[in-house]
């Protein structure tokens, strides 16, 4: 077998593992490009978070995946099957392979919980007894035992989203799309729903693609994150890496609420002149962050340093540290070299005259 064929086979095998594969997808609405050449893959069993501000193209992107929206150009493959050329009638069976949950739940008010959950199965042509039995299983799975006969208006927001999740899972989909599913919920309920999604991902091996504007959502359950801005992917990678060392400005600003920030009373005192103390931002993540960084710094850095602010977070079981450290201005270079030797990244944020 020549190498060309081997590579093709390897690619085919890799494709099998990609539940979603987008290549150069474009969609315009009038003069604005909602999607401006998006390429991404979602691997089987992973949770991919797509984050961006409102208007970044997230909703258009997720709606393209089940054919609710059609791209102007580009390729969209679901489980290896190209869907961009499919007509409405061909898309319908495909959509049954893709569950979707929504920000406003979109439960049918005239149907009970079990009827809502069983609806995808009714569409698939299951008998009433079979679909109600399956609905009961799912209602159990999402923790709503005893609520089968209730109407959505009798449920709380969190319970409604649980029904939404049960309904999305009814037809045993290969992929779950989550469209801002927790954005209408309070923080406590959000955590409970995210835990449920993560559980389902683990238990059923379900692939999940979620879009959100909240970094906290990505932080708590996603494996990988893709940052979307003005219809383009500006950054992507494992969540802990993107959180540890965000490159794009959009990512940094989206992360600002969730990572330690230099307190504003210190930021106000920062000057560009090299005087007094230098304030440094130190990022350290992954295996490097589990080492005895401060002990090593103390042992080898004779000029003395001060911890101003910061801490260590744990994302995907990886330590992600961000510290603000003050060192004598003239020792900045020495400190930087040393810290970088231990695997940290150092950024000079400015100087303060005297003590910050």
């Amino acid at each position: 077998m020549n190498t060309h064929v081997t590579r093709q086979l390897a690619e085919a095998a890799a494709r099998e593992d990609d539940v979603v594969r987008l290549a150069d997808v474009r969609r315009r609405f009038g003069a604005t490009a909602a999607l401006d050449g998006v390429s991404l893959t979602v691997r089987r069993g992973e949770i991919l978070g797509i984050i961006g501000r409102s208007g970044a193209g997230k909703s258009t992107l997720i709606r393209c995946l089940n054919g609710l929206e059609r791209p102007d150009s580009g390729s969209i493959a679901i489980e290896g099957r190209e869907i961009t050329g499919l007509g409405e009638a061909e898309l319908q069976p495909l959509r049954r392979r893709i569950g979707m949950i929504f920000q406003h739940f979109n439960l049918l008010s005239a149907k009970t919980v079990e009827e809502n959950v069983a609806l995808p199965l009714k569409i698939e042509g299951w008998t009433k007894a079979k679909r109600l039995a399956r609905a009961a299983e799912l209602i159990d799975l999402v923790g709503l035992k005893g609520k089968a006969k209730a109407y959505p208006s009798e449920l709380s927001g969190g319970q409604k989203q649980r029904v939404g999740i049960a309904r999305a899972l009814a037809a045993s989909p290969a992929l779950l799309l989550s469209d801002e599913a927790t954005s209408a919920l309070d923080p406590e309920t959000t955590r409970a729903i995210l835990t449920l999604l993560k559980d389902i991902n683990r238990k059923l091996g379900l692939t999940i693609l979620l879009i959100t504007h909240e970094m906290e959502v990505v932080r708590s359950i996603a494996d990988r994150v893709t940052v979307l801005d003005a219809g383009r992917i500006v950054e992507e990678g494992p969540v802990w890496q993107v959180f540890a060392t965000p490159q794009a400005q959009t990512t940094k600003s989206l992360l600002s609420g969730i990572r330690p920030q230099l307190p504003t009373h210190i930021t106000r005192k920062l000057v560009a002149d090299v005087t007094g103390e230098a304030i440094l931002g130190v990022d350290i993540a992954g295996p490097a962050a589990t080492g005895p960084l401060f002990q090593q710094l103390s042992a080898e850095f004779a000029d003395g340093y001060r911890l101003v602010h910061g801490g260590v977070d744990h994302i995907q079981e990886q330590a992600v540290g961000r510290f603000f450290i003050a060192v004598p201005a003239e020792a900045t270079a020495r400190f930087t070299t040393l810290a970088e030797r231990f695997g940290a990244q150092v950024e000079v944020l400015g100087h303060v005259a005297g003590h910050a």
Partner: protein
Amino acid sequence: MSPVMLELLVRSLWETVVMTAASGVISLVFGLPLGLALVATARGGIAENLWINRVLGAVINGFRSVPFIILLVALIPVTRFIVGTSIGTWAAIVPLAIAATPYYARIAEVSLREVDRGLIEAVRAMGGNRWTIVREVLIPEALPGIVAGFTVTLVTLIGASAMAGAIGAGGLGDLAIRYGYQRFETSVMVAVVAVLIVLVCGIQWLGDRLTARLDHRG
């Protein structure tokens, strides 16, 4: 009131009920699909077709702008073709139904249009076709409004059926005009109005109860 008058009152009530019920059912059977067609073919609808939408809208508006008393007379050839006669209670049902159908279609249209688009999207996303959307989303979600609108239509039909006396259809309105007005029998007039009030209140009460039972929107 004499027993003869009482019998006349009962017969007229029956005629009114027959006219209202029959034309009401016909307007429901034809008006609801028409209302659905209006919503489905509108911009962004599940079967968008602006051309059909405009034509349907124009025809409905045309029928709705003709005063009922004129429609009653103008439709005589149609009535004769369908019922075989242009006089009597059954003959009046044809123009009543033809007047009520576009009226009800507009009422149904409003209820159907108010169904949350997110629900339609959710059912599309689970692989439902247009028929699924109609059967599982549009009709059940709009049902409280559809029933409430039907109640309004029935009450309107009771009013319109009073004019059907013009083609010899009888009914309570006809009784009130011929006896109460033309023969100065005030007691008949008062009795007719009282019966009408009870009839309308009864229908409205039933309609309201049914609407409340069907409404789970919370």
